[in-house]
Structure formats: structure tokens, C-alpha cells
């Protein structure tokens, strides 16, 4: 019995780890294209102000200095859906903005988890993620 049941248990254990992964993949597939713009819980940004925030035209909400960050994992979708520009134009906008006004382009995070961590730990932090962000941040808009 021992020789027969242990492999089965191993398979069940592996299955227990694989099933949630499949679930996550399916969830990601089901929500494909969904995008959440998030900010630090202390930031009261309006959805209409998202564009200005990410192109450097809006730097403050009240006394809070905004600190937007890009998320390279879904940046292309964000630029297309929210800012309505392509990557080349976005880079050009920031080149001009930086050269004219001394402003610094948003830092680039490489995953949802990184963007989420940045927003949570940065006062004025804002970014965007492709999955439900959960508690600890404010969802400004969902696209």
C-alpha cells in the first residue's frame, strides 16, 4: 500500500499547487485588459486628473506631492487606454517636460507587485496594475 499511496499523495500535493496557478491564469485571462490606476491611500486624486499626473502637468493634490510610477508589465496598455499615446510619444512628452521644467519622468516598476509595493510605501505614490490590488491602496479608476 505504501508504495502505491505515496506517489498519489505527491500528485495530489502537486495538484494542490497547480490548481491555484491554473485558477490565477484563468482569472487573468478572464480579466484580460483590465487595468487599475491606484494611488497611495492618502492621495485624493480624481479620475480626470490621471492623465495630467502621468505627463507631469499635475504635481500636487492639496499639499501632497504626487509621485507617479510606470509599470512596464502593462505600460503599453496603460498608454493606449488611459493616456491615448504610444510609447514613443510618451517618451517625447517627458523629454520636453523634463528639459523645459526640470521635472523627472516617473520611475519604472517591472511588475504589479512592485508597483503595488511602491504605491503603498510612497506618500503621493500612484501607479497602475493589471490585477485587483487589494487593500492598502486607493483605486482611482478601472479601465
Amino acid at each position: 500500500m505504501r508504495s502505491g499511496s505515496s506517489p498519489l499523495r505527491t500528485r495530489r500535493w502537486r495538484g494542490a499547487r497547480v490548481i491555484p496557478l491554473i485558477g490565477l491564469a484563468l482569472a487573468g485571462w478572464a480579466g484580460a485588459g483590465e487595468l487599475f490606476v491606484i494611488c497611495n491611500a492618502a492621495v485624493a486624486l480624481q479620475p480626470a486628473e490621471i492623465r495630467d499626473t502621468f505627463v507631469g502637468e499635475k504635481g500636487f493634490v492639496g499639499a501632497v506631492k504626487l509621485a507617479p510610477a510606470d509599470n512596464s508589465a502593462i505600460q503599453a496598455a496603460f498608454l493606449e487606454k488611459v493616456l491615448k499615446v504610444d510609447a514613443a510619444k510618451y517618451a517625447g512628452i517627458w523629454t520636453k517636460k523634463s528639459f523645459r521644467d526640470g521635472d523627472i519622468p516617473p520611475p519604472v516598476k517591472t511588475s504589479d507587485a512592485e508597483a503595488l509595493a511602491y504605491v503603498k510605501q510612497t506618500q503621493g505614490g500612484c501607479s497602475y496594475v493589471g490585477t485587483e490590488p487589494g487593500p492598502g491602496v486607493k483605486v482611482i479608476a478601472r479601465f
Partner: protein
Amino acid sequence: MIKQAGNTARGLALAVAAFSAIAPIASRGAGSEGEQIAELKQKLDQSLKMIEALTARVRQLEAAQPASTPTAAATAVPADAQRIETVENRVAQMEASNAARGGDSSSLPMHGFADVGVANHNPWNPDLKGYYVGDLDFYLTPRLGTHTKALFELNFETDTDGSIGVDLERAQIGYSFSDAATVWLGRFHTPFGYMNTALHHGSWIANALRRPAFLNFEDHDGILPVHTVGAWLTGAAHGEGGKLLYDVYMGNGQRISGGVIDMRNAGNDHGQLIAGGRLGYQWTEGAAEGLQFGLHGFSSKIGDDQVPEHNTQLRVVGGYGVYDTDRWEHIFEIYLFDNKDVSGNGGTHKSTAGFAQFAYRAPFGVPYLRYERASLQQADQYFAQQAFGASYWRAAIGIRFDIDPKSALKLELANTHVTDQTPNQIQREYDDALAQYAIRF
């Protein structure tokens, strides 16, 4: 694996035996019944022996590795779990570390622009022709903190005589109170018109190959103080559908030395100031999105290096308009001078300068047209003492091709008429054909 092999072998053996037993019956209808029974018995014996041999072999194989697999599997479970947990912890640490990079105070982004070209008349000195080196322009925007920011621009440029000069074009440190108020101290682009702050150095930024001649930099025969050393308050008040833009500034009064406007980087020796402002409105939504209008004005008491020295109260007012969208880029600016000779009895002199530029952002490139004109009173010592203070007009047509997101090729044809005869300029007309390769990095 071993157990699975055993089951397979047994199955094969039974199949072989059954086939061996049935096949002769099916295929042979002839012969005596006794012979057939004997033959069947023989084959059955052979099959049984084969089954026994295979069964023995299977047992032998099973005995060779009896319980190793389940043990390994049993120990692998916690080992895998531990490894995965370690990896997850490391990933979480990396994410937290990367997430904090945005606030890294040691980063020093440095970018810049450069351009080279060829022309039958140099863009800034029509007496020269051939290949030319334009600017190598670096700018730094150090990350300083929440409210403090800085901008330094160091430009290696070819002067009108062909020598290479190095200028600290901008050196400004500022404090942002809010979107509505940032105070800069240092050397900055004097905020008048649109082009002087939006399209200054860095040829790549502008669609046109060069600035209007009267808006050239001081050391490229420009006639306006395009840089100021002083203090500058600037900001924007966001409202429904647009924003109000304002600038107020004051700084060291400039001086004309050797025919060139000197912005007095280290301070001046006469306590004279330049003071001015700009007020504009930009539509950011709706049908007028991209449209911007503004008014500007400044005053400065400007001396020169003549003996006796001339002092002119420079008084300039004007306006500008911009229509900048994904499709169009139109710009116009006007400057009205009402300069007063304050060192003699020269009285006041009225002059004008302005330009209009129209550009279309087509898929293949950005063609543009520009007309510029300066009508400058030569009795006004402010213009008379400058290397290029003559009246002129220029019509230009050009096109910009974006080769990739960081480089552009520009071509321009222009016709220029210098309409005043001055000690530094002769009346003349010439046609330009220019090409420029501009990059950003």
C-alpha cells in the same frame, strides 16, 4: 515506474499466450484431431513458461528498488515547499527594494541633444557655408526631494565665428509650493513669448530647423535677452477645461558688450534690473484643446560698452498664440518695442518683430512654413550697438522627418532679406538650403 512496467509486462505475456493459442485454431482447418491437440498442448506449455519467466523478471525488477520512490516523494514534499517559500521571500524582498528606487536620492538623470548639418549658408552666419557642427547640449535634473528641484544645462556650441564655446545655459534651483507656485533662482530662459521657454536649445525638440533670427541666442546674434539671471515665480491654476499660466520674474539688467547681449551671470555693477511677466491661458479639453494665448512684457535698463555709454530703457510688450495638437503645430509671436534713450536726447523708438509658423504633423513627416520679420529703428542704440540689430524678413519652408523616436532629419529652404545697412550688417538678400540631423539621448 517499476510497478507500471510490471503490469505492462504481465499484460503482454497474457496477450501473447492467448494469441498463440487461438491463432493456430483459426488458421488451420486440416489435420487429425490428435495432432492438433498435441500441437496445442505444446504451444500452451511454451506460453506458460514464457509467462513464468516474465513474471519472475518483473518480481526481480520490483525487488531491486522496492521502497525508494515513496520515501523520496515523502521527503521531496517539504523540501519543495521550503525552496518555494525561500524563492517567494526573495522575490518579495526584490520587489520591495525595486519599489523603493523611485525615492532614491542619489540618482542623477542626464540627457541631452546634439545636431550637425550642412548648408549653403550657415544657419547663424550666412558668410559661412558647408558642413557645420551645431550644439552638444547636456541637461541634468537631479532628484532632490519632494519640493526642491534643479535644472542645469551645459551647452557646447559652435559660435558664429566657428569657435567652440561652452555655456552654462541654465543653472536654476527651484522650490515648488504647489502646481500654482514654483520659485526658481539662478539663470533661466526669460519667460516671454512661447518659443523661448518651450523650444529653446535642443534642436530635436523643435519641428523647425532653427529659431527665428531675432529670437536667436545672445551669442548667435539674437536681439532679445533670452536668458535672465535672477528670480522667477511661475505656476498654473487648473480650471474646468483649461489652465491659467503665469510667470513673474526679475533679474540682473543686461549689457551689450562687443555687440552681444551679456546677461551678467555674476551680477551687474549698476544695480539695474530686468523685470517682466507673462500671462496665458491654455485649453486642455474640448474643441479648443491645444490652443494657448498669452501676453508678455518686460522692461530693462540696458547699457553698452561704448564711450560714452548709451543707456536704453528697453520696454517690450507683446503676445503669442499656439495651437499644438496631434495634427497641427501653429505658433505666432509679436514683440512691440518702445525703447527710451535715457542717456541722451535720443527720445523713444518704436520697433516691431514677430513671426508666424504653421506645421502639419503628417504620417510621413512635419512640413512647415514660417514667415518672420523685424523692423528695428536704427536710431535706437539698443539695436544699433548689437552685432545683428538690422531689420530683416525671412520666408522659409521646411520639413522634419522622424527617423526613429530619438533622431530627426530636417530640411529647410529660406529666402532672407536684410533691409537695413548698419556698421555690422550690409543690405542683402540670400537664399538658404539647409539640412540638419538632430538627436536626443
